[in-house]
């Protein structure tokens, strides 16, 4: 059907004679977008996306176009139909979305126009400040997480969802922009890439062993508060000790025999303030020959 459609401006006029500047939504604004540049012979024209729609032309009030993108329309086309309309070009040119087929978004029934608005001059999904609203319309938990005490500058548009994820499919798990979690994180945090003389296995394994990238109540983007975080893996030397809220500033004062403030004169450093990180500060790895314990 794509070969039969008229992509020219004359072809468009079959549509714009009704769908003009006074239509309920801005339609002609597509001519400000890349899809509307008639000087580029690849641009689709109205029928290129919506189909030739001869029946609709004959009975505009009764028959709908062959491909309907309006999400609230009773005649909304299936996801497969809408995506096929986009992929007719975007899977067959040199910018093919190679990894789209079989990607989580594709298999979970996401349509291109769930995120993209082909008629909009400035698409929300392409504006770094408004992109989280688009992704968050489905990923509401992650959007909520972006408001937490410790977070990336997502709301400010300095780090966007697409900074880390390729929503069209990728070589990485969870639609990561890079092949692995660490390759994705070190795109910005290159100082943590190493390789270090003294490596910390959970760090080389995956940053998200300790961090939760969408937001946390615990700085910096931690899954669990230190020292508990460290004690989940380390149980020797002073890491085996029981650190609790006993006699911490702001915590409960523990007494023995109800009279002696045992320990209250000396809250352990490992369980207080910055905890383990007060000493083991090069926890992402150390290149100091004496830094095997991540203190150098």
């Amino acid at each position, binding site marked *: 059907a794509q070969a039969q459609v008229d992509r020219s401006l004359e072809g468009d006029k079959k549509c714009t004679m009704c769908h003009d500047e006074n239509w309920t939504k801005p339609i002609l604004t597509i001519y400000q977008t890349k899809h509307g540049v008639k000087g580029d012979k690849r641009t689709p024209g109205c029928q290129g996306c919506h189909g030739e729609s001869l029946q609709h032309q004959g009975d505009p009030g009764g028959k709908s176009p062959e491909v309907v993108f309006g999400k609230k329309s009773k005649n909304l086309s299936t996801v497969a139909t809408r995506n096929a309309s986009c992929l007719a070009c975007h899977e067959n040119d040199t910018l093919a979305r190679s990894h789209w087929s079989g990607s989580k978004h594709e298999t979970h029934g996401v349509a291109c126009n769930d995120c993209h608005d082909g008629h909009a001059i400035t698409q929300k999904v392409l504006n770094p400040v408004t992109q989280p609203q688009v992704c968050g319309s489905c990923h509401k938990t992650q959007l909520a997480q972006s408001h937490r005490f410790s977070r990336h500058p997502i709301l*400010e548009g*300095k780090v966007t969802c697409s900074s880390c994820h390729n929503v069209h499919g990728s070589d990485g798990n969870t639609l990561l922009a890079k092949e692995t979690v660490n390759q994705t994180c070190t*795109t910005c945090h290159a100082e943590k890439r190493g390789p270090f003389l003294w490596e910390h296995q959970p760090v080389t394994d995956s940053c998200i062993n300790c961090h939760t990238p969408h937001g946390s*109540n615990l700085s910096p983007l931690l899954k669990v508060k230190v020292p508990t975080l460290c004690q*989940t893996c380390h149980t020797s030397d002073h890491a085996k000790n029981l650190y609790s809220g*006993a006699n911490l500033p702001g*915590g409960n004062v523990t007494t023995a025999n109800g009279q002696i403030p045992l320990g209250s004169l000396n809250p352990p450093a490992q369980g207080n303030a910055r905890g383990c990180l007060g000493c083991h500060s090069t926890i992402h790895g150390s290149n100091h020959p004496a830094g095997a314990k991540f203190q150098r």
Partner: protein
Amino acid sequence: LLLLVFFGSSTQAYSQANPTTAAPAATAPTAASQTTPGKTADFGVGGVSGSSYKFGEYNGLQNSGPFGVGNFDFRGGAAYDSNSAWRWQMKGTDLGLETRSLYAEFGKQGKFRVYGSYSEMLANRSDSFQTPYLGAGTNNFTLPSTWLLPVVAQKSATAQNFRGLDPIAGSGSYYSTAGVLTAPTAAQLLTNATIRAADLPLFHNVNLSTKRTKVEFGMKLQLASNVYVPVSYSYEHKSGLKALGAVTSQVSENSVILPIPIDFDTSQANAAVFYRFKQLLVSAAYYGSYFTDNINSYTYQDVADLTKSATLATAPSNQFNQFTFTAMEKFKHNAKLVVSGSYGRNTQDDPFITAAQNGQLAFGLPTASLHGLVVSSLVNAKFTAEPAKKWNVVAHYRYANRDNQTPVNTYYFQDANESKSGTSAFAGLYGNPATLGSNTNIYANRPYSDKTNQAEGEAEYAIAKKQWFAGEYKWEKVDRSCPGSWIDCSDARTTSEHTLGASWNKTSVAGFTGRATYDYSWRRGAYNENAFLALVPMANQVPTGGASQSLYSFLKSTGLNGFGPLTNLPGVALTGDAAIYTPLNNAVPQGLYGSRNAINELLGLRRYTVADRNRQKAFVDLDWQATEKFTLHANGEADSNDFINSTYGVKKDLFWEATLDASYTTANAFVLDVYYTYDHKRMRFRGDAYGSNSTTAFVGQAADTLVAGGCFPTVATKNASAKIDPCLSYTKDDTNKYDTAGFTLSKSAGNLQLAAQVLYNRGRSYTEVAGGSYVNNPLALAAPAPALPAGTPAVFYIAAQNYPTIRDDEFTITPTASYVFKKKTTLKAFYLFQKMMSSDWAYLGMQYGTGTNYLPSNEIAPNYAISAGGLSLLYAF
């Protein structure tokens, strides 16, 4: 106003409901206004009511006072209906401000496009950090000559004690050697006061923040209809100050927090070629990332001993070069095969800190730099098809290898500022220096590598119109190793995980869309409790002192790990190697494997990253378009992980969340969206503060033998079973609860547009601790102090306490308004109010008097109520 524009602060992020670059709402749209690329400029002024680093953490609004608003978006080029495809755009946001960005592009669509950008990113970290150190902004930190060693004179006139910096905490009574609670003398109080008078004025504020400045250029060339070449290059400089912990003396674990300087340069390059031949698409790409740390080290005086100093290494400069390829072929039945792969090399060869720079390296270095090399490779193959009507299938295989080829060497070092003492059991043997101390570390680096194989198959069947059911199986095998290590370094050399999943998907039937998925996974692997030995090569050598074999040989022959046997004092005295390696059935002495610290783990610990686990994941998402005006959306998710074979370590990890979102819309005139999200995460782990079996029967004096509480009545019975005392076992439950609620509102009325966002976010973190510790009665002292009165406990068992709750509450309201008072001119107004209430016990522990052996930084949790607002004129032309 111009000055304000160039030196003010950012607002764009808080104008999302009404983007500053949006064209004004013309009273009567025309074909020309909709089809002609437009130009908008938006300039104005605003103000902030207060100062807070947290309020301005990323938006630049950290200072009170006026600021400027400046944004523009100019677009132009050939008309849509011309034969020309030339287009250009210039865009600027938050002009001249610490969050500013500029972008420009031009090109002939379908032929080429050239673009460039400039952006700045701010990260405010603290405005309450204090330090007595001089040299902030440099890499050399010194203490003023007037700095006096903080002590609590009534406890010790010479031992460092940072609690002395607080007049109350440093003036308490103490127990004398006679066991008498004694008030400090006037002379002792004067000593403490003299130290405070000298030291406290030396603490000064250092604002901590970092800033990234990035420039990027790129070009996209359509060389032919089937050849496409994009290239780009970016350079980023990061500078500023961050806080970093630095230990001074490992013996008493004194530490300080330094305001270290950040001076990073990172360049990144991308280039690719895409080529299409009929249904075959191939591409080849290059990615390079080159990181340079312009600071080699940080040196700082020892706060406990001004004659000493120490040196920290910085993040080493490194390079990453990666080549990738992709091939895609389409077949009949919508079948498609995509094969991709990559080869990357990550190198690092920064010069090491030398012995001359750091006294911990008295025995020299095996090499002057790491010669670090990590080779990463990937092969990815995915086949998708519709083999029959109603059927979709996906088959996917993925191989990823991180091969760390960094050479392994042995390094000798003393712990931080700790002098060598004693004689190592390996001194002068096996090529080791003859002067090694018993507290000298003999460590080998462990270059961690991992290799992942994944295979996945999914089949989807249409059980009805727009209704699908899918089944999935996934297999993942991970191999971990350290090439060149003398023994296996991985906790679990191989882990395999299998996942079975099912999902139901219904789309847009009567306005109803729904999806439900369930996955069950099981991961298994052989856990290696002696992996820690890879760090200490002397574990494979026979130490002096009578042992007949190495520690590794002993552990292999006995089936033990470094923890030793799980039992109490031996009934009969141990002999031979058992008496040497597991004296009194205790853990292996670290000196017998060349370590200053015990590094064995608990018998039964399983690190959760590789531990055996059963996992269940469920997800439900429902969306109902009730009417054209009203939409209701709800979803829920749960992820439960049971670490079934972990006696110690993480036992259970549970996450679940629920979201409800309702939206009401009347055409474009009025939109209301209300939402609420609850997020719950809980992790339980078990530890054990085991002691060493001993024959010690009293504390202080022979008659002081009773224990109050705990699992044993006397000191003798407690110590005999110190290693297996069940009262020393403990659990921690770490729970995070989050509530996020809010609504957005927008209303258009003629030329007036109103919008508002209201958001409340609450985060609560709890750490519940169950267990306890034994603490000696401070009155149980050696003679000449008197013995305890008969029946008085010499040891108390005190219960653990939950950590104080960490809580953050944030309320934000951002109303905006715009009014088109001329066809091309719009008056815009925005207001932002944010209230933050934050509490975290970590900050309380950073104050004077709250810790004995770490330097306070006096940072405080952010609490504020700040408003920001402004007016701007947006002109369209």
